């Protein structure tokens, strides 16, 4: 592998450029990630939001080099800052580089389902220690144990000494997810990917785990990519939000921009389908139709056929990313100068006003 060094601005940790990825299937090629670009700064949290199947997990797996055997990166680069003066293109890294330099030590991931994520025949303490020892973050087993116990405490597990020796089946789902988080933090990575970390958990425990991740974010100043299909949970977690649909990022901006001034009809749909905070809705909205089959991606904007606001142009050609502000972009022809001035649906506008008030009163 050529040790070509790439450039990233100093505060930047990750830049994904035009990532295009497909899976070979017996009945065709599934174009799952289509020209995705985004970036992440040190200490920043980016939420990637979208319906299930939109390509969020595959994107994060691509960052970690975990693409299934039938998958192929067709185009694009994933630039990652390994150290102050080393940047690698992760699409070109071999397995050995990933194991030794990236996985666990620089980028860690929390999977969705804590029930299956832990090795059932290994005490959880050992599973936390393993990574530190592998990457030489500690000098001895004794030190690894001390640090693991401290980590268990940090992620909010009581009686760490007892838990350390227990097996996964002796812990509840919430506790297991805390252990998975401890494993992710074991080597003090620079980037933490949380792929729907609460989807498989009970509602009450969901909130606890979200609080824990927020707490980690504040304390460690780590960069986080937070994946979720639920826009609701990112409201006060993310600095920036990227909305993903059918393998593309359709809107991206600061959290406030995407929440309070969304411009893409898909984002409107997602926001409208959130249950309201007070639960006083007469009816809960849901986006009509279902995502397209990406073996035969539709022409133009892949959301057009589900959208009430689609223009003729949306069915004809791919909308480019229009800039709304320096930080806010969206891919819809509605933003074109020639397009009729369309406003977001009235009901949604009301809700956003309510949300703003609600949120403001909490501050």
């Amino acid at each position, binding site marked *: 592998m050529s040790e070509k060094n790439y450039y990233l601005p100093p505060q930047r940790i990750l830049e994904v450029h035009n990532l295009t990825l497909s899976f070979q299937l017996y009945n065709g090629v599934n174009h799952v990630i289509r020209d995705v670009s985004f970036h992440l700064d040190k200490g920043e949290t980016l939420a990637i939001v979208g319906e299930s199947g939109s390509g969020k997990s595959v994107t994060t797996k691509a960052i970690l080099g975990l693409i299934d055997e039938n998958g192929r990166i067709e185009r694009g680069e994933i630039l990652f800052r390994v150290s102050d003066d080393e940047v690698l293109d992760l699409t070109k890294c071999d397995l050995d580089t990933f*194991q030794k330099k990236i996985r666990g030590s620089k980028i*860690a991931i929390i*999977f969705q389902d804590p029930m299956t994520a832990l090795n059932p025949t290994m005490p959880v303490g050992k599973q936390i220690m*393993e990574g530190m020892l592998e990457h030489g973050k500690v000098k001895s087993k004794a030190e690894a144990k001390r640090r693991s116990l401290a980590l268990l405490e940090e992620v909010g597990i009581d009686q760490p000494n007892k838990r350390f020796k227990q097996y996964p089946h002796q812990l509840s789902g919430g506790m297991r997810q805390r252990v998975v988080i401890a494993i992710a933090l*074991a080597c003090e990575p620079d980037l933490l990917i949380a792929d729907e970390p609460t989807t498989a958990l009970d509602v009450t425990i969901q909130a606890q785990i979200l609080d824990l991740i927020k707490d980690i974010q504040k304390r460690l100043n780590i960069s986080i990519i937070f994946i979720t299909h639920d826009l609701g949970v990112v409201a006060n977690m993310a600095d920036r939000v990227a909305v993903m649909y059918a393998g593309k990022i359709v809107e991206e901006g600061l959290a406030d921009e995407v929440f309070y001034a969304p411009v893409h009809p898909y984002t409107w749909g997602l926001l409208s389908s959130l249950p309201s905070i007070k639960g006083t809705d007469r009816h809960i909205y849901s986006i009509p139709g279902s995502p397209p089959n990406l073996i035969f991606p539709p022409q133009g904007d892949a959301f057009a056929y589900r959208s009430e606001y689609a223009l003729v142009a949306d069915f004809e050609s791919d909308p480019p990313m229009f800039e709304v502000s320096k930080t806010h972009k969206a891919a819809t022809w509605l933003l074109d100068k020639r397009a009729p001035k369309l406003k977001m649906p009235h009901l949604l506008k009301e809700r956003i006003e309510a949300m703003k008030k609600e949120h403001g009163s909490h501050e």
Partner: protein
Amino acid sequence: MVKYVLKRLFWALVTVLLILFILFLLLEFMPGSPFNEEKLTVDQIRILKEHYGLDKPFFEKFWIFLVNATKGDFGISYNLQKNMKVSQIVMPRLWVSVRLGLQAIGLGSVMGVILGVISGSNQNNWKDSVATIMAVVGVSIPSFVFALTLSFLLGYKIPIFSMIYQANHPFASTILPTISLSLFTMAQVTRFLRTELVEVMDSEYIRLATVKGLSRIKILFKHGFRNALISVVTIFGPLVVNVLTGSLVIEKIFSIPGIGGLLVLAIQSSDYNIIVMVTFIYSVLYIAVNLLVDVLYGVIDPRIRVSKGA
């Protein structure tokens, strides 16, 4: 864990008792009697029966049988070596058989584990294909065919190994029978381990181990292998049965003086006491293996160890 083992032990004992009872029933209702000389008068038979305790009530006789059996006394041989204690005929041969069986199980398991790991961790390339073919061959061809082929090729055509058992070279002269007997075990262990390993290596916790940045070897052995082994352990019961039954024929082919050959002889000459004792030994071996499997299972799988009383 102790409680778990004790419970298993208790049930193993119950099973042994049950088997002894069934064997006793068989003896009781076996046609004929030891005293079928025509010259004996009714009185003489009565005296003989009294002498040997055969006139006692059923359960008392069973009790005596039980007590003697636990002492290893299964009476005397009727035909093979008249009036010699059965245990004196069986025991020396038992060790020959046990030794052969252990060699075969040991060789088969080691080879099976090696092939299973190679095949399960190199899915669908040539290494996997070779191991899979060996496994299919090992399962589908009976051990006596191997035995005959091996002894013809490596004992007769190219005489490297001994074709028959030599008491003064118990290891060198059992190499061919060990290989023949071990093939089935090898094949089964390979097959099971491969299937399990493929499944385990596709699980979420292996993915987690991978994203921790562990080396391939550590992922395979520390996380994959142990979990795959759990279900492989369960097939050891049936494997031992296969080795036991296989040894009946293998011992005959290589003239090995073991209990397998003895059982065949005893059946041919209706030497009931020997049949009973050898059958009993086979049963106990089988129960012991299953007990061992249960215990091993608990050792390997913490979910069983911890939940069944630590």
